[in-house]
């Protein structure tokens, strides 16, 4: 019984370690079979392309840790992107556009949060409804037309490389801040508590409803930020952008070891989970494998991840 503490500490990062090993295996395989994968510019591009997803996945992780789910995040992303694009098109300064996008995201998140926490509705149903409504509203508004951005928006007016590095750095900063926060902020602890048992948390004097609402707002604001980071990568905004983002984020979160029933998980795991999923597609391209396999492999990774959890837990419990 006394030994359990050290074991627990070692096993606290077991998911991260497993994921890290999995990632290493893939990278090592690529190094041997398709060394072409390791080229600075394509790798930089890959990371840049995944940066927005990482930010959204971090926000989603908090929502799931709080035992909620948000499947409207892809629609929010699309709406934020288009609105930001329109504002940028009116030559607003990019910083202001970013703030507006985050504010819009936060507002959309707040609507979800209000419906979930304020009216105590199940989040999966609420966000299903808002997903459909937002996406459709956007479609109606844009009719599929791209938003063309002024030249200064791409890469925030920097050179391409600087822009890419900026985007990656921003997303990593968000990750680090949130991950450190998760461990050290008492607010974060409260989120874990609410996810673990909302009623018990309320009885412990934690404002459970406000916290539930907060995680949605946080996710919304991060989605707005992600939309900006995505927008800065191209001179046009596709109003369909963000389709399927919710599945990608949820998959990364789940593979990263966050329990879908709330209360457990770390953001480092989510980071590794996202990287693992993200490198499947280029890996297949480099290995000249049929693209059809990509999602099947994603599905398999998700299953293995949750099954692995289960197996570990089972061993601990019995």
């Amino acid at each position, binding site marked *: *019984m*006394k*030994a*359990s*503490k050290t074991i*627990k500490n070692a096993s606290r990062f077991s998911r991260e370690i497993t994921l890290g090993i999995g990632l290493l295996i893939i990278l090592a395989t690529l190094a041997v079979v398709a060394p072409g994968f390791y080229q600075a510019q394509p790798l930089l591009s890959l990371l840049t392309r995944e940066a927005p997803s990482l930010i959204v996945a971090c926000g989603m992780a908090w929502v799931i840790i709080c035992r909620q789910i948000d499947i409207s995040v892809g629609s929010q992303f699309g709406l934020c992107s288009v609105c930001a694009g329109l504002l940028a098109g009116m030559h607003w300064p990019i910083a202001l556009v970013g703030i507006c996008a985050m504010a819009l995201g936060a507002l959309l998140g707040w609507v979800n949060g209000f419906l979930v926490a304020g009216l105590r509705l199940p989040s999966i149903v609420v966000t299903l409804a808002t997903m459909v409504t937002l996406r459709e509203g956007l479609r109606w508004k844009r009719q599929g037309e791209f938003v063309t951005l002024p030249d200064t928006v791409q890469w925030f007016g920097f050179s391409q490389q600087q822009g890419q590095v900026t985007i990656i750095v921003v997303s990593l900063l968000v990750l680090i801040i949130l991950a450190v926060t998760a*461990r*050290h*902020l*008492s*607010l974060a*602890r*409260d989120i*874990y*508590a609410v996810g*673990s*048992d909302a*009623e*018990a*948390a*309320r*009885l*412990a*004097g*934690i*404002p459970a409803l406000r916290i539930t609402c907060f995680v949605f707002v946080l996710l919304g604001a991060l989605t707005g930020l992600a939309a900006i980071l995505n927008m800065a990568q191209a001179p046009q905004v596709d109003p369909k952008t963000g389709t399927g983002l919710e599945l990608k984020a949820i998959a990364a979160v789940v593979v990263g070891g966050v329990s879908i029933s709330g*209360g*457990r998980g770390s953001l480092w795991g989510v980071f590794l989970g996202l990287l693992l999923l993200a490198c499947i597609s280029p890996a297949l391209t480099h290995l000249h494998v049929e693209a059809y396999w990509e999602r099947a492999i994603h599905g398999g990774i998700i299953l293995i991840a949750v099954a692995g959890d289960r197996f570990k837990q089972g061993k*601990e*419990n*019995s």
Partner: protein
Amino acid sequence: MPSTLLQLSGITKCFGEVRALRGVSFDLQAGEVHALLGENGAGKSTLIKIITGAHLPDGGSITLNGNLLGPLNPAFARTLGIACIYQQPALFKDLTVAENIGLRLEARGAFKKVDWVGQRKQAETLLQLIGADIHPDEEVKELSMPEQQMVEIACALGAKARIIIMDEPTASLTRKEQELLFKVVRKLRTDGMGIIYISHRLEEIFALSDRVTVLRDGESVGTVRAGAVGEKGLIQRMVGRELAASSIQKNFTPGAIVLELRNLTCKENGTKNVSLEVRAGEVVGMAGMVGAGRTELAQILFGLATPGGGTILVNGKPTEIKSPSDAVKCGIAYVPEDRRRHGVMLEMAIQSNISMASHGRLFPGGWLHEGRENEEALRSIRELGIKTSGPLALANTLSGGNQQKVALGRWLATKPRVLILDEPTQGVDVGAKLEIHKIIRELAASGMAILMISSDLPEVIAVSDRIAVMRLGELVAMLPADATQQEIMAAALGQSVL
């Protein structure tokens, strides 16, 4: 010549690294009440879950009527005539009482037709038999804990089982319901059934049981006739040492009024016109029948229900308490009665559980300080005698009583001015109970104002400085500390004593 119904030998069970049972042997005769006794976490609930098939043992054998049993599961155990009232009611919240009873009692079979009429009749009969005033069409989630317990008892009774297991069935029952239950149990015994009875209340064990098996740290320390060893003997077996005399020092020096209620009324939960004051250093005990509305009063004070009228004054200032966080800010702490559901976060470390309500005090600025948290947790573990591997262990590895202590520890860590305890020793073993009583008095002595809701009259009398009695949402009597049990009961039942 009584026949042996059930024989367990050498049962072992581990949960991870926790060895809950280490080779327990146990037997049950037909026509006896066999009590299981032990401190919190001794392994009683685990043992009976093995009998009902809810857990699989790691080792040992189970013999039923002389036949060795293979691996059990709850469905199989039921067909073998084993019925159980678990410590935590295992009812279906969304279904009605009648459906719950029907589900448990009907023979299994996927394609059987549900006999709605018969099921309802049976439910009515059973509820009448145990004297429960519960409507069969009520949904279980509308019932209070004791009412749910009564439904559980009705289920076990209706199962016509040969072996009935009761895990702390009286923990939340009042005297009257308890007497009814005892009558039922005695009748079952004369009908030749075997009953395993778990309780922390020694007087029940003496009143009811034929033999007692005492468990300590997952091991059996022997089976005895209850009368043969006496209370002292049993306690000694349980805790492995002599227990200090159970008298508590009440040195109450009245301080300022910390909490004052004036005509507090709430239509929603039936609280009517309650006026009450609690002084610093004072323990006000709160007695009443189940459903008297004591929990409801506490909920108003803790911001879980909104009062319709009247005022709450904290330190003489009128205060509005709209949510638990408001209450915490006012220095009010509330240890709820249903600790399993509302008391502790089972998935979280003990340490986090204990610091949970005191983030503001422990971590000004919102930055967690692990050292401080750890210190706080270690202190609670030490002071409250929580049995655990350490502050980082998860709360769901603790036994019920130890979880209760964690819940208490959480609120003590907030350094409250007003502490509301709802059934603080429900399901807590004798040793720990004494500890908790002592702690309550110490807290009072340190200047806290304490409101203690309890259905355990000796406890109320032993610990309180004054005793408030509630009935149907009203405060009907305020008795001095030396009131007798009869006086309190009379007030609670609405007979005039004043």
